[in-house]
């Protein structure tokens, strides 16, 4: 929970925050990106994070009251429907972080909202109770069946889409999940909005590290920056199978050296 009055006011679901780690003179130069979980205007913003490597381990050690250096809000938030249509929100692991804010935003607009939370196992699930508070229906899946339905979020997604006659599916989580959600949504003629997670050096659009192949309105594939043109992308526009490659038909491919 980070106190940041000015910033909180302007946060929308899908925005992320870039957090400096390691302290001054520390060996870590780059900020860590986290989806904004909750923003209380004129007060604070909250994130949910998993202790992963050096930076998040440092964050875990910080005590309440310690000052944290952040840049936010960053990125393009989720696009919201104009009509009060049915929506399904799909989250994998800490991918649930932005979903509660999104859900209540959608409810405000009169949308019917279902949330699907998936994880490898129960301990990796985040925000189940919170979800139940905001969504009409919440379905939980775990790979090992330790909680909810045994299986993947995409196993239960089709029914959810049908139940809500969803026009929009929102997803945040690991790439394979996003890919699956995007295709399932397409099959059911629902727009999908996927928040991707590419490693980022700057988070503000100046370094070009966070790119992935995305098809533009002109049908041309470009390596697009997920920090400023994302992290939320239309699921039908991302070339999921080609992530971490340069598709040969990408503008400016093939590559020749240089850095």
């Amino acid at each position, binding site marked *: 929970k980070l106190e940041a009055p000015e910033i909180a006011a302007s946060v929308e679901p899908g925005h992320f925050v870039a957090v400096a780690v390691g302290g001054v003179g520390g060996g870590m130069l*780059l900020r860590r990106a986290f989806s904004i979980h909750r923003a209380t205007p004129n007060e604070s913003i909250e994130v949910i994070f998993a202790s992963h490597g050096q930076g998040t381990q440092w964050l875990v050690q910080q005590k309440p009251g310690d000052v944290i250096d952040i840049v936010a809000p960053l990125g393009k938030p989720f696009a919201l429907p104009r009509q009060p249509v049915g929506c399904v929100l799909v989250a994998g692991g800490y991918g649930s972080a932005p979903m509660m804010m999104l859900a209540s935003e959608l409810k405000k607009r009169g949308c019917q909202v279902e949330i699907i939370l998936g994880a490898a196992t129960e301990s990796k699930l985040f925000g189940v109770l919170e979800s139940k508070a905001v969504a009409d229906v919440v379905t939980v899946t775990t790979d090992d069946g330790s909680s909810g339905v045994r299986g993947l979020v995409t196993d239960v997604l089709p029914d959810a889409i049908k139940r809500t006659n969803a026009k929009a599916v929102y997803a945040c989580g690991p790439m394979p999940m996003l890919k699956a959600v995007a295709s399932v949504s397409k099959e059911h003629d629902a727009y999908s909005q996927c928040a991707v997670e590419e490693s980022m050096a*700057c988070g503000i659009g100046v*370094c070009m*590290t*966070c*790119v992935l192949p995305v098809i533009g309105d002109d049908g041309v594939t470009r390596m697009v920056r997920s920090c400023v043109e994302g992290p939320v992308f239309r699921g039908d526009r991302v070339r999921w199978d080609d992530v971490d490659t340069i598709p040969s038909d990408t503008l400016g491919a093939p590559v020749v050296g240089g850095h």
Partner: protein
Amino acid sequence: MSVDLTTSLGSLSLSGPTATASGCAAAGKELAQFGDLRTLGAVVTKSIMKNARSGRATPRMAETPSGMLNSIGLQGPGIESFLEKDLAWLRENNVTTIVSIAGNNVDEFGELARILKDVPGIGGLEVNISCPNVESRGQVFACNPYSAAEVISTVRQEWTNESPILAKLSPDVTDIVEIASSVVEAGVDGVSMINTLLGMVIDLDKMKPMLGGRTGGLSGPAIRPVAVRAVYQVHAAFPHLPILGMGGIRTGHDALEFIAAGASAVSIGTVVFGDPSAPWRIANELGQELATRGYEKLTDAIGAAHV
């Protein structure tokens, strides 16, 4: 007492001592929300090539101790789009702009110079010779005195206006003074140094190099001592050659090390990723560092650590 921080790179006078580093500020626009670009010495744009270029596959970066590795692969929209969109924006906003160019072969550098020479709003040219020469088995131009000189003399011939040509040097050489003298003979107006060091990080879970491009360029405070040494050596050999110094500058204290070693101005690169307002902050800190040491003008401190 406030210190006079104006300086110059050959015929280009700079209103401030700090510039962005090529590839670390795109074409400036994204940084505008963090400060007034007109108060910077200059915006040095991401190296632009003749044609659009997709760059290398991801992952493109790895964090390293006090540094980072990148293999962007010179992703860019190509010169035409750059002129229409990026340079136009910079010109409209009266930003002192140094355009960085890169080519796959000597001719491409020449073409780019020819295209740019009559374009208004260009304060100077930074020739990024720290990229592979496709026509000599991908050897980096800046790693060979002859190719380096060839690129510069070709650009020199095309470049019919008096704004300075800077050669961007690579530290991955046995003798950087040798490279510097070859570009000086080829008629360069100044040098930018240093570019990144070739490095690698291995992903032990995938058991292969972490970066899509396998190797990448090491930057950040980790390489600062190498950069200061390089600037010091080149300034010692060519005391009158303007130097745009860079490599791991994080504070005004760091910046003054480069000035004292012989740089006339500095570029801030990797540190911008962690602190987007660094180019402005560092300029202020540099002013204070100079003031506490009794300097009235930044230019009096250039090369002060020699003798």
